[in-house]
């Protein structure tokens, strides 16, 4: 315990030194707290495993419906089929649109041979068709994700960092301000110097949307698929308009999270992979001072 305390004191001392550093061309600051970093990577690992095990679960019945029920003979709004023709054709149907997806969805190549399966090996955990194991992975990391989220929110709410660092201020939400931010982001001009020390309004908005919007939506729609919880909390089913609707919303929200992840990666590359990555691992971030 004393060792840990000393270590934390050491960290905070380093942090104070940084903030007192003489202004120059560039300086290094502690950008992300240990809590943020630990939560970020726990989240990244959990989300990755949840996405991939989720696709393996969907492999068992790759059709999505609206309402309480959904089964083979009922119309699905989303359907991946593995055709019986020779050679076999894989199709993806969304609403009334049908796409040929042989090789990518429906008919996939695994270990050198052609297999009738909605999602290819490289997209799923585990790789081979295995609903039982996929469920174990999914629920284990769902618990980790939720525990991680609760710890992060409770601690940052208590320390006030949630309000200070993450929640957008009303001035930041002014349309003019947001438009200006969006314009400079589109021209790949990102905040520098002291402005880069904190999240800009677009970051705050997108992180908040994920943490308070998509995140809870994923968890609640997931829980609504549980027949046990449906008996304990029937209002959950009504909230989503039925169990199969919840299943559809779970899938749509996962796709939106995937879009967020892609935008997140694009931003990482645009701003500078090494500096950003280091700040999320060691906490240290180099501030480029505006000229």
């Amino acid at each position, binding site marked *: 315990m004393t060792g840990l305390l000393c270590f934390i004191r050491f960290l905070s001392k380093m942090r104070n030194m940084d903030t007192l550093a003489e202004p120059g061309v560039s300086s290094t600051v502690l950008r992300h707290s*240990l809590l943020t970093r630990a939560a970020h990577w726990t989240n990244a690992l959990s989300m990755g495993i949840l996405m991939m095990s989720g696709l393996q679960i969907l492999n068992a019945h790759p059709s999505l419906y609206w309402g309480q029920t*959904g089964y083979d003979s009922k119309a699905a709004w989303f359907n991946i089929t593995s055709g019986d023709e020779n050679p076999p054709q894989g199709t993806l149907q969304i609403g009334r649109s049908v796409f040929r997806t042989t090789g990518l969805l429906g008919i996939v190549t695994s270990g050198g041979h052609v297999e009738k399966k909605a999602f290819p090996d490289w997209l799923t955990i585990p790789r081979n068709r295995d*609903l039982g194991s996929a469920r174990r992975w999914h629920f*284990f990391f769902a618990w980790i994700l939720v525990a991680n989220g609760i710890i992060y929110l409770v601690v940052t709410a208590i320390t006030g960092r949630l309000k200070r660092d993450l929640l957008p201020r009303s001035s930041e939400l002014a349309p003019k301000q947001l438009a200006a931010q969006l314009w400079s982001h589109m021209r790949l001009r990102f905040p520098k110097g002291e402005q880069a020390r904190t999240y800009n309004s677009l970051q705050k908005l997108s992180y908040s949307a994920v943490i308070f919007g998509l995140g809870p939506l994923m968890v609640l729609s997931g829980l609504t698929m*549980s027949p046990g919880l449906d008996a304990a909390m029937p209002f959950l089913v009504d909230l989503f308009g039925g169990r199969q609707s919840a299943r559809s919303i779970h899938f749509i929200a996962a796709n939106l999270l995937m879009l967020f992840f892609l935008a997140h990666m694009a931003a990482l590359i645009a701003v500078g992979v090494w500096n950003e990555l280091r700040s999320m691992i060691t906490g240290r971030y180099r501030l480029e001072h505006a000229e």
Partner: protein
Amino acid sequence: MGRILLSRRRFLQTTAISFGSLIGAGCDQMVQTPSFKPKVNAEPLTLHGQRLLLRGQSLAREFSLADVAPQFPSTGTTVPQDSEYQRLLEQQFAAWRLQVDGRVERPTSFSLSELQCLPSRTQITRHDCVEGWSAIARWQGVPLSLLLHYAQLKADARYVVFHCADTVGGGSQMGGGGGGRYYESIDLIDAFHQQTILAYSLNGKPLPVENGAPLRLRLERQLGYKHAKYVMRVEVAARLDLIGAGKGGYWEDRGYEWYAGI
């Protein structure tokens, strides 16, 4: 600074404790079952979490006749190939008897018509398959609690095991392993739940073969693979490790969770 220091330390402690308990639960399972494939297991957390919320006799939602699916899907075994079952089916289950035995004071057996004379419960419920689909149907059957009260459980009774007539070949969408005789098990909390019935009727007609004739379990707060079809014997047990491969069910022996509340 002091405030942040303290919260940081508290954060570390909390993370260590909560993640330790999760991983601990996983390791525990691995020690007990060396053949266990995925080395992750949150089943105890899920079971206890749901049981905390399911205090009392929370019922699964019951629907109206208008919600019933035109044709209830069938999954797993659709026609048991076992010769014993085939013989019983030929005589329309006239010779079929449900054994009730194990850790009970009064081992007994019932014919189908005897079961149909007992007080019954009819419920229109949503069936949720582990594969992901759901369908609504109307089930009628004898409450399991009635049979258990009649047989009188011994003090060490903990589980109710359902032995089925069908040998499963494998090759289902659920995946996994070679064949074996189907069986399932539940604990006494679920066994005495009022919606836990042994159903002999589906949508007002005798239970069809593809849905488990002559008798199947309905366990409305858990997934479909728990709802054993073609039930031949109800065994009250003190422990599950001596039955089958010891995990409490056909799919459980092949890596599925015993508690299928999610």
